[in-house]
């Protein structure tokens, strides 16, 4: 294959990518590219995980260490399959907080601390630089493969020249499409689509080579399996520490790598895409790994001894005369390398610009935050950062000489970024994680990684002297870089992973437990950990910001039109017609998030703070907000209590009112009754006395008339006596004659007296004389009066054919109860509360004399005797119960 055709093909491919990115950007700007933001494109863009290290290196890895290469893809598979645990929350927070990079996420979580942003940026840049160098190396090597053996006038070009062209071209592409605009959410539709196209190319290329190997060189899967069994790959040993450690490492890397974070979180345009990616991305990884072992096996079998297994994907088809297939494989490798470099450069430049350049510039010239042209500056700093990142990668490639096995450098880089994991997971799930803990954990982890893995990887005497590697610094054996604390004999990579993450996590947790977070930190912590609860973060009202100044600043960052649109929307939401909304806390927070999407949370916070003067928020302010809420809650609880009390009182009032109404009705009824009662005897007295006055009648007739007059007068007197008695009893001025009296005798007396009422009825009286032998200290006359009343009531009203009355006496402690139960039909329920009221009379038809005062008098008497009288419901018959004390002690009675 002529070398110039190769160069032409790769140039054509690059131009094609440029066109794709360009067209997509144009269509996205016109708003016509909805389908470009599909779950498929999202999933394919995630394939930047598979770099040239996968494309070329996995085969080499398999040739050297058997199935161990699978760990690099099984870890991410587990993370994506378990997206409901972590990725979902990560993406949600990324969208809520408008996170621009992984450094921004950590910085934002821990109180928008720029120190943390700088630390994470440094870790990422240091870890990614060798990785970018690796990509440059793989592209250069693959050029070399085509140039080397053919020797048709095109000698192997100078490696450095090739790599500088590659690095320069990539920088141009990245700057062109990665920094076209300061998107609100830092998304790059064009680049992402180009990456998705590259993802398809590399998958197709690897599958094509794999299919060629399995069905072209070997005779199908069964043959391949037997060849695997007989090849040297079959002798690999599964070391549990590496198998476990590498799966964990790759799982950590897939979320912590800056380029993965970029495509996974920052470029995510719809959370639902993640659901698709949860199975589609593992599927992609599986397809990428499927033919790695067959290619490695056939390469080992067919290629000459000593050829580089990292390049089998390329050299195997080439050696079989499959030039077209080799070209496809070359483009696949080229795609893998370029997509990684582009995304990594975008991610790293965002971090460097937002966390290093901008804060530096702001601290040098604070006044320019408002007046200067921030927008241009941010873009410029980002472009310079891209160039710098690629320059670093190129420098590393030149310095290291590009001779190591590809896989080693990739894993070292993974361990470096894995140091971010504790701070990230802690920040997402633990509100107690603090800035101090994160700073210490990251620093210690990074230092151990550099000391135990990164610096020794340059080889003895390169950075760390061979003597230190062998004996430890200053002869301290327990500090040997690859055998810390005497842990020897395990793989250096696992050794470094274990110690760096162990110390990182321990320091992070310990200092988090001991330190106290600042107010912004606590708010951000709550917002991150409770990302799925739509609770608004507590605001504190500290206006004071001039909306116009805010608008000027926002225009410098977002661009004039977008800033105006944002302000207008906010003003409309506040119900104002003008462009300038009031600087409410909600508005300022929204604006800060919006700016954070362009320049990062820490910078946005600092800029807003300068204008709004919010920097001086103390814990006390937060507590005041919380106290206010607590007071409101307490107040409402008190109100509730009061309301309950009122309801209770109202219910009581209603009951009393009902009773009063009933009584008033009764009173009216009684007034007509009493006038009638008074009038009947008066009428007969008047009539008979008139007859007597006329004289002239027989003596016996006159005597008869006189007796009638006398009886009627007695009836009147009795009625008046009753009324008088009642009023005396009610006023409590009654004179009681206290003395010892036998209950049985009193009942005897009462029965005898009551016998005069309707003497024609025969009553069956049931008594238990033994239980009645009780001596009471009370007013026996009054008590007997109550008995008489109850018994005569029974005689009057009992409607049974064979009436009977049971008198039942019981002693309970210092009190006596006496029940009078007849076998009548009893008193209806609605009347039971009324019968003890004055003037109450149940039925009009049973006119048995009296004015309905009997039971009222009984009740007053019992109250005066320290007892009660009540109707006993639920007996199925009329039953009254009297309760009174055995010994009445009453000061007033003495």
């Amino acid at each position: 294959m002529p070398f110039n055709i190769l160069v032409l093909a790769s140039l054509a491919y690059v131009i094609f990518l440029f066109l794709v990115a360009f067209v997509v950007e144009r269509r996205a700007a016109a708003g016509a590219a909805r389908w470009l933001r599909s779950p498929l494109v999202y999933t394919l863009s995630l394939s930047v995980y598979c770099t040239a290290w996968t494309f070329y290196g996995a085969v080499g890895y398999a040739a050297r260490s058997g199935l161990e290469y699978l760990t690099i893809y099984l870890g991410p598979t587990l993370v994506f399959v378990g997206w409901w645990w972590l990725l979902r929350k990560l993406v949600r927070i990324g969208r809520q907080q408008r996170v621009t990079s992984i450094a921004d996420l950590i910085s934002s979580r821990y109180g928008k601390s720029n120190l943390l942003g700088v630390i994470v940026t440094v870790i990422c840049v240091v870890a990614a630089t060798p990785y970018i160098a690796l990509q440059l190396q793989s592209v250069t090597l693959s050029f070399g493969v085509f140039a080397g053996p053919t020797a048709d006038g095109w000698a192997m070009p100078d490696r450095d020249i090739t790599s500088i062209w590659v690095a320069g071209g990539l920088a141009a592409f990245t700057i062109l499409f990665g920094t076209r605009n300061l998107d609100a959410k830092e998304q790059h539709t064009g680049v992402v689509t180009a990456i998705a196209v590259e993802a398809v190319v590399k998958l197709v290329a690897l599958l094509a080579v794999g299919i060629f190997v399995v069905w072209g060189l070997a005779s199908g899967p069964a043959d391949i399996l037997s060849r695997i069994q007989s090849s040297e790959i079959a002798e690999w040993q599964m070391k549990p520490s590496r198998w476990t450690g590498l799966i964990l490492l790759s799982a950590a890397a897939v979320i912590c790598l800056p380029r993965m974070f970029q495509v996974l979180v920052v470029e995510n345009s719809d959370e639902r895409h993640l659901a698709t990616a949860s199975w589609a991305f593992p599927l992609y990884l599986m397809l990428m790994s499927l033919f790695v072992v067959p290619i490695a096996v056939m390469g080992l079998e067919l290629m000459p001894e000593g050829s580089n297994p990292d390049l089998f994907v390329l050299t195997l088809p080439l050696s079989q005369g499959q030039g077209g297939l080799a070209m496809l494989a070359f483009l696949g490798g080229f795609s893998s390398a370029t997509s990684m470099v582009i995304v990594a450069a975008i991610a790293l430049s965002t971090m460097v610009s937002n966390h290093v350049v901008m804060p530096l510039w702001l601290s040098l010239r604070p006044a320019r935050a408002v007046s200067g042209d921030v927008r241009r500056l941010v873009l410029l700093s980002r472009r310079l950062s891209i160039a710098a990142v690629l320059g670093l990668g190129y420098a590393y490639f030149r310095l290291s000489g590009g001779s190591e096995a590809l896989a080693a450098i990739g894993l070292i880089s993974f361990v470096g970024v894995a140091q971010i994991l504790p701070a990230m997971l802690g920040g997402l799930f633990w509100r107690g994680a603090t800035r101090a803990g994160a700073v210490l954990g990251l620093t210690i982890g990074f230092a151990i990684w550099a000391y135990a893995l990164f610096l020794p990887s340059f080889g003895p005497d390169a950075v760390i002297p061979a003597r230190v590697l062998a004996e430890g610094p200053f002869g301290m054996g327990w500090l040997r870089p690859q055998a810390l604390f005497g842990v020897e004999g395990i793989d250096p990579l696992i050794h470094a992973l274990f110690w760096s993450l162990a110390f990182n996590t321990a320091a992070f947790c310990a200092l988090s437990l001991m330190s106290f977070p600042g107010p912004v930190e606590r708010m951000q912590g709550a917002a991150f950990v409770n990302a799925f609860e739509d609770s608004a973060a507590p605001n504190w009202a500290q206006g004071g910001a001039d909306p116009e100044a805010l608008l000027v600043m926002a225009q410098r960052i977002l661009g004039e039109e977008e800033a105006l649109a944002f302000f207008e929307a906010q003003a409309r939401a506040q119900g104002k017609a003008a462009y300038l909304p009031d600087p409410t806390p909600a508005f300022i927070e929204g604006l800060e998030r919006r700016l954070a999407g362009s320049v990062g949370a820490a910078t946005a916070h600092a800029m807003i703070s300068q204008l709004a003067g919010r920097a001086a928020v103390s814990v006390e302010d937060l507590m005041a907000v919380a106290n206010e809420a607590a007071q409101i809650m307490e107040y409402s609880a008190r109100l509730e209590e009061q309301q309950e009390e009122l309801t209770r009182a109202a219910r009581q009032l209603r009951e009393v009112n009902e009773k009063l109404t009933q009584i008033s009705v009764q009173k009216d009824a009684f007034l007509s009754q009493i006038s009638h009662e008074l009038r009947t005897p008066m009428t007969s007295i008047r009539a008979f006395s008139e007859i007597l006055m006329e004289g002239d009648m027989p003596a016996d007739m006159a005597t008869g008339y006189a007796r009638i007059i006398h009886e009627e007068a007695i009836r009147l007197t009795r009625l008046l006596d009753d009324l008088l008695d009642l009023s005396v009893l009610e006023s409590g001025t009654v004179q009681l004659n206290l003395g010892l009296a036998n209950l049985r005798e009193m009942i005897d007396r009462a029965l005898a007296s009551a016998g005069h009422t309707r003497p024609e009825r025969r009553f069956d009286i049931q008594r238990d004389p033994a239980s009645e032998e009780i001596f009471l200290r009370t007013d026996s006359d009054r008590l007997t009066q109550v008995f008489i009343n109850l018994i005569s009531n029974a005689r009057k009203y009992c409607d049974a054919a064979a009436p009977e009355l049971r008198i039942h006496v019981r002693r309970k402690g210092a009190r006596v109860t006496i029940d009078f139960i007849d076998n009548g039909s009893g008193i209806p329920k609605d009347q039971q509360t009324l019968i003890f009221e004055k003037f109450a009379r149940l039925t009009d038809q049973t006119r048995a004399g009296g004015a309905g005062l009997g039971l009222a008098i009984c009740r007053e008497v019992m109250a005066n005797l320290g007892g009660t009288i009540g109707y006993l419901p639920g007996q199925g018959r009329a039953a009254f119960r009297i309760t009174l004390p055995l010994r009445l002690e009453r000061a007033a009675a003495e």
Partner: protein
Amino acid sequence: MKAPLFLARASYRRRRLRDAARLLPLVGAFLIWLPMLWGKSDSTARDTGMDVIYLFVVWTVLVLAAAVLAPRLGGDEPERTVTEDEG
């Protein structure tokens, strides 16, 4: 505003599906770690062909299970189960 203690059938199903989605990576991790326990008895060589087949079958099953679960989880509905145990 407490979440209700008991749920209707549909939302109960969805919660159990989410539990399944949470369990899936743990099951996957177990199955992937399982080969470490094999092949220790004969120290000569592993049955690498069988390992390849086993791991890719596990992989396929994980992908299929995730593909079945993912659309049924109902992402938009606000849900407290993830965060309820954190203070």
